[in-house]
């Protein structure tokens, strides 16, 4: 079964090492882009702080992993796996994301 990809925004809307938030199939999703134009998507919900804020955290190279530090209480979430490195039980979902023809797409 092939996935259906939905356009979210222009690639040019992203600024390196920062995030944006998308509304997709009723869920809030945080999309990040790194130095090498690689994109990542995890839930926007921060279970530690109980608010939808992860897209607004600082992208951080933490113990060799590319993470986002929550803007509320600074826990690190692995951008690739969604794992919360300080409190693993508070890990978050990841989502398939890609860049296609100048657009950022979620499946």
């Amino acid at each position, binding site marked *: 079964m092939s996935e259906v990809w939905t356009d979210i925004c222009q690639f040019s809307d992203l600024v390196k090492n920062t995030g944006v938030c*998308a509304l997709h199939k009723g869920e809030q999703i945080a999309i990040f882009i790194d130095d090498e134009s690689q994109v990542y998507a995890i839930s926007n919900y921060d279970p530690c702080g109980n*608010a939808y804020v992860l897209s607004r955290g600082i992208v951080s190279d933490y113990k060799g992993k590319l993470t986002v530090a929550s803007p509320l209480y*600074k826990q690190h979430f692995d951008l690739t796996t969604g794992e919360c490195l300080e409190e693993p039980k508070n890990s978050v979902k990841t989502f398939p994301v890609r860049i296609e023809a100048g657009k950022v797409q979620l499946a």
Partner: protein
Amino acid sequence: MSKQKLVVVGNGMVGHKFIENMVEHPDYANYEIVTFSEEPRLAYDRVQLSYYFSGKTVDDLMLTSPDYYNENGVRFIVNDKVVAIDSINNKIVTANGREEAYDKLILATGSYPFVPPVPGREQAHCLVYRTIEDLEAITASAQGSTVGVVVGGGLLGLEAANALKNLGLEAHVVEFAPRLMAVQLDEGGGELLRAKIESLGVGVHTEKNTTEIVKGETCRYRMNFADGSHLETDMIVFSAGIRPQDELARQFNIDIGPRGGIQINNYCQTSIENIYAIGECALWDNKIYGLVAPGYQMAKVAVSHITGEAVEFTGADMSTKLKLLGVDVASIGDAQARTPNCLSYTYLDQHKGVYKRLVVSPDNKKVLGAVMVGDVDAYGNLLQMMLGDIEIPGTPEAFILPAMEGAAPALGVDALPDSAQICSCHSVTKGDIFEAVKGGCTDLSGIKSCTKAVTGCGGCAAMTTQVMNAALTEMGVEVNNNLCEHFEYTRQELFDIVRSKKIKTFEQLINTHGQGKGCEICKPAVGSMLATHWNDYILADEHLQLQDTNDVFLANMQKDGTYSVVPRMPAGEVTPDQLIALGQIGKEFNLYTKITGGQRVDFFGAQLHELPIIWEKLIDAGFETGHAYGKSLRTVKSCVGSTWCRYGMLDSVSMAVLLEMRYKGMRTPHKVKMAVSGCTRECAEAQSKDVGVIATDKGWNLYVCGNGGMKPRHADLFASDLDDETLIKYVDRFYMFYSHTADRLQRTSVWMDNMEGGLDYLKSVIIEDKLGICEELEADMQRIIDNYECEWKKTINSKERLKRFAHFINSDATDDTLAYVAERGQPRARIDMAARAKIGKGEIIKTLDITDVAEPV
């Protein structure tokens, strides 16, 4: 068993120290204490007495309080002098007829100033310098005087001369001996000190024996000297040494030395077994000790003997280091080289005004004494070598010569025994500091609060730091001040790199001086440094990734992900029209509204997409960003000052507006706050701010490095009676020096507590330009000021930037998870108590329901 009753006669520094040591003793429950003072108040810090003239109040000088005594069950009677001792029935009688029985009597009656028996000495404007009342009399007398003379060129005399100078008088010092500070200095040191003091405009007259004080011709009095010369003056302060206050003991048959002083043994007992004497009234081995440290030692010995231990008093070191009239002076041990066959090394630099003499043993191996004027950096090392009887490492002369290429030899603190006393004011040993470090104090401010070291005269700061670092090394703690894993540099080093290599972006810096990709620690820190130095728009694409969300959206994120909005309201001044505009905006966006501690308005609950709309309206109403989100200047709080207040000395509001407009937008290592008060009533609470300004009748007093908040710190008086221009110059330099040298997220208070050399060092950098950097500091500040622009104004004019202010990049929908409840007529975030308990890692605390307070009728 009933309690033993201790009666302490005299509540000066030493009497209070005795009480404090008793109260802290584990067996204190077995004792009760009563203390009498003939002065109207409890113990205060006589060592710091001269600060009374540079702005400190009586409260600042107090060493204790009625509350402390009450809490610890110490009864105290002030304004009542003990006039009789009945050593047969063990009781005392006071001037007011009060009787008090004792088991042990402690005489801590101190000393009185010696006034030479000169005819005419009893006139109205002939005063002494010892108590707060004396200082009040000097201040009153100075008001009708233009010339003042101090008789006595010793330590206290020079302090008194400084006081007269600060009171605006033409000051002179008259000394009987051939040089100043004859007890502590040798001839060379005395000469240099004289030259330095004369260059400050204070007249020095040595070898003068005053024969009479008569009516003057040009002034109130004329002092005639034995050599036929004379000096005209309006007032005279006698400071010609002290005499032990032994009258009470003398009258009631306690043994007194031939030249005065209550004789004591090694346990501080007098000739009557259950009567002790401590401090300046006591005579031990025919010596009176006129310094506070030996007095404290005696207090400790007496406590020890009373509680059944066996510490003995075995004499005290009289070495001293202090600043007199702005001149650094130190004296150690045998300063005058009286030891037979001893050897001396002397260094004199007349250009810089430095004199040093080192006295060593005949075999050239041990330090016996030293004199230093103008540069006292070697004091700590030399003192430890003398006290510890340590062999001099390397050549002795290296310790007094100026540091040339290559480091001067350091006395390895490893060589010191654990019992070596590092801080003599508070008897803190090397062992105590090691203990504190092992207990978790790993920086100087921790050591200070834990051991009290460095908090007395401050002379041991450098030595304490060395011992602390040795302890850290021994524990295997690498003293690592690296910013984070991505930069092996301290913030200060990185700042130097940014400035010297003209680095403008994070990428440039991490590629050339770092590793990895950076994290939430180094990114905002570097962002702050770039902003301090270049003051570029912080939301430019290349800087965006460095900023915390607060800086990205120019607002403060709250717990639910919404933001608070704070427009600048310089000095808390606001027009009625602006207030109306604020009210309309708050109402339109349904924002919870509160007044901040910094005298401005804070709106809560603004959603991301609302921020630009709110700001457009705020800017239309004449507001600009308040930087409440930044590590930058927050507010300059002010009282209403001389424009309205009956007591205001100067226009504090205008000064506060000027300062706020000058420093707004400046990025610093941590947030900074300021305040300006219009008089010493201090309604703006300036002494709790990073920079506080208080108006006096002669100009502005500048205070620095205060803090409220988590760890309150009273600001230090930095400079007095400044005009507007000098005030601003000092504040410019202060902020830039702080920005250049502080650690990341280090408030000015902690920065100061960790600064080697402390306040004096900071003054030497900023006022005297010791490092020769003031011009550069001012230029750096001017660049920031010139590049200021309101970040919100710039943002709402940029379409590109505004795109980021949407909750969703792909939808106009807003965050529907936010929930509010009404409370006292306003919306507030719904508190999820379970989630709060999780964050607080504790139980849910029961609270009263005050959501619906009745409206006033």
